[in-house]
């Protein structure tokens, strides 16, 4: 159940969870070796979460869900998704909040609250007075802001306790964060978990020196950045705009914007990630009509592959390289734009999950969900070209 044996799950302080949840979450039962620490945590949780405060209980649960999602923590995402359902929030909406709350039809005030909480969780060094002012502009008073900050901190504490003690979920997770953190992560995963969301090994950003020269007034050095990243920017833009001529036009705009905003680039992300984010914004600005990267569709529905048919060992050998290039371009372009751009950043541009999530302004679970959907849809469209025979296609 966890790395440490339970000694006593009848501690009086645990009764509060039975009252509010109907059971004692395993994350507290795993700490019963130190009743005094359990008591302290339950008092804090009682005052901050259960008792009536400045924020509503649902707003506090939203913060728990979003910060846990940012931490890629399946345990608390499942627990608080379920809790929100007990409080009357629809399952689909609570899950959408974990994946990407901006698509969950929340009020402007709640969205602002979660923007702040997400930034506090993922980019704590980036929080400034401006972020707090944005909360005030959204109608939050100082007591509510204090509670929001403490709720984000409490969530981090609980997330760390669960991961550190290897506590298994109380509920089976349904989302794409599942199960991973209930086991001790492998070394590479441990490194990933220890890094904040936006840390993309910024310290070894290969562009840092050239960026410094440009910022110092060496305009010509910017040409090096255009040459290094033109391909990446072009791919990001054509994935959104679907038209080579328009992508070239937008590419120019993108680099001009990057040059003119370079003084604002503070190096908290890699230069290349910052640039791709500008490219995506430039591309989205040019989109007209209902096509939009954030269009809400059936993302929260499970995608069910239909064509299950074995492929040969090297099915691509039947095609020339040029044929494959055209085939991939044709089928990728058929994907809905939100999945297409996520897939292109990960699988064609080969950005890391963190880089792609940052470039698209998504949480890691949100990015993973889009990439997986894109990959499955693309696989489905490739079956007629690469399956051994067409006889076994299930429809």
């Amino acid at each position, binding site marked *: 159940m966890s790395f440490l044996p339970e000694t006593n799950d009848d501690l009086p302080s645990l009764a509060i969870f039975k009252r509010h949840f109907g059971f004692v979450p395993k994350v507290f039962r795993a700490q019963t070796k130190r009743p005094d620490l359990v008591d302290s945590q339950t008092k804090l949780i009682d005052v901050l979460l259960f008792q009536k405060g400045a924020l509503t209980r649902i707003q506090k649960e939203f913060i728990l869900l979003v910060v846990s999602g940012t931490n890629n923590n399946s345990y608390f995402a499942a627990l608080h998704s379920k809790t929100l359902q007990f409080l009357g929030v629809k399952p689909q909406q609570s899950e959408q909040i974990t994946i990407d709350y901006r698509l969950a039809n929340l009020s402007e005030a709640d969205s602002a609250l979660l923007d702040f909480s997400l930034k506090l969780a993922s980019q704590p060094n980036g929080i400034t007075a401006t972020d707090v002012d944005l909360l005030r502009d959204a109608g939050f008073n100082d007591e509510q802001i204090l509670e929001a900050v403490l709720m984000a901190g409490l969530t981090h504490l609980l997330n760390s306790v669960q991961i550190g003690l290897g506590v298994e979920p109380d509920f089976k997770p349904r989302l794409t964060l*599942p199960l991973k953190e209930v*086991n001790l992560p492998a070394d590479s995963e441990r490194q990933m978990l220890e890094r904040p969301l936006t840390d993309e090994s910024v310290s070894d950003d290969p562009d840092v020196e050239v960026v410094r020269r440009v910022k110092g007034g060496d305009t010509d050095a910017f040409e090096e950045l255009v040459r290094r990243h033109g391909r990446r920017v072009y791919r990001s833009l054509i994935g959104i705009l679907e038209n*080579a001529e328009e992508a070239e036009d937008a590419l120019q705009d993108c*680099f001009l914007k990057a040059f003119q905003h370079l003084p604002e680039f503070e190096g908290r992300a890699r230069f290349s990630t910052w640039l791709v984010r500008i490219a995506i914004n430039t591309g989205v600005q040019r989109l007209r009509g209902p096509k939009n990267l954030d269009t809400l569709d059936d993302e929260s529905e499970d995608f069910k592959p239909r064509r299950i*048919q074995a492929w040969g060992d090297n099915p691509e050998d039947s095609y020339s390289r040029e044929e494959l290039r055209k085939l991939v371009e044709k089928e*990728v372009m058929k994907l809905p734009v939100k999945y297409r751009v996520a897939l292109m950043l990960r*699988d064609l541009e*080969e950005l890391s999950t963190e880089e792609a999530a940052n470039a698209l302004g998504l949480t890691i679970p949100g990015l993973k969900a889009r990439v997986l959907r894109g*990959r499955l849809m693309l696989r489905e469209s490739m079956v007629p070209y690469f399956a051994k025979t067409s006889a076994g296609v299930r429809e």
Partner: protein
Amino acid sequence: MISCQDFITELGNLLDDDVAIGIREQLQAHLAHCNTCQVLYDSTRKTLRIVTESGSFDYPEPIAEPLVSRIMDRIRSGCELPDSASSK
């Protein structure tokens, strides 16, 4: 024992080699007895390989140099920042 839907949910992490040992064992145990998921995993893995190696949407080299020149000319001439109004 995990279900096929659980397997699909974890498929992205498996393809990215981003699963903990305990989870990998569960996924492999599922693959050992589920032909549908085995086919799904194999064909999605091959799809990724084909996409990654396809060179699709590559920057069209013949236009690269003129584009670089155009961008740098506009920067050196101190052109206005493109904004949404200038976007199509």
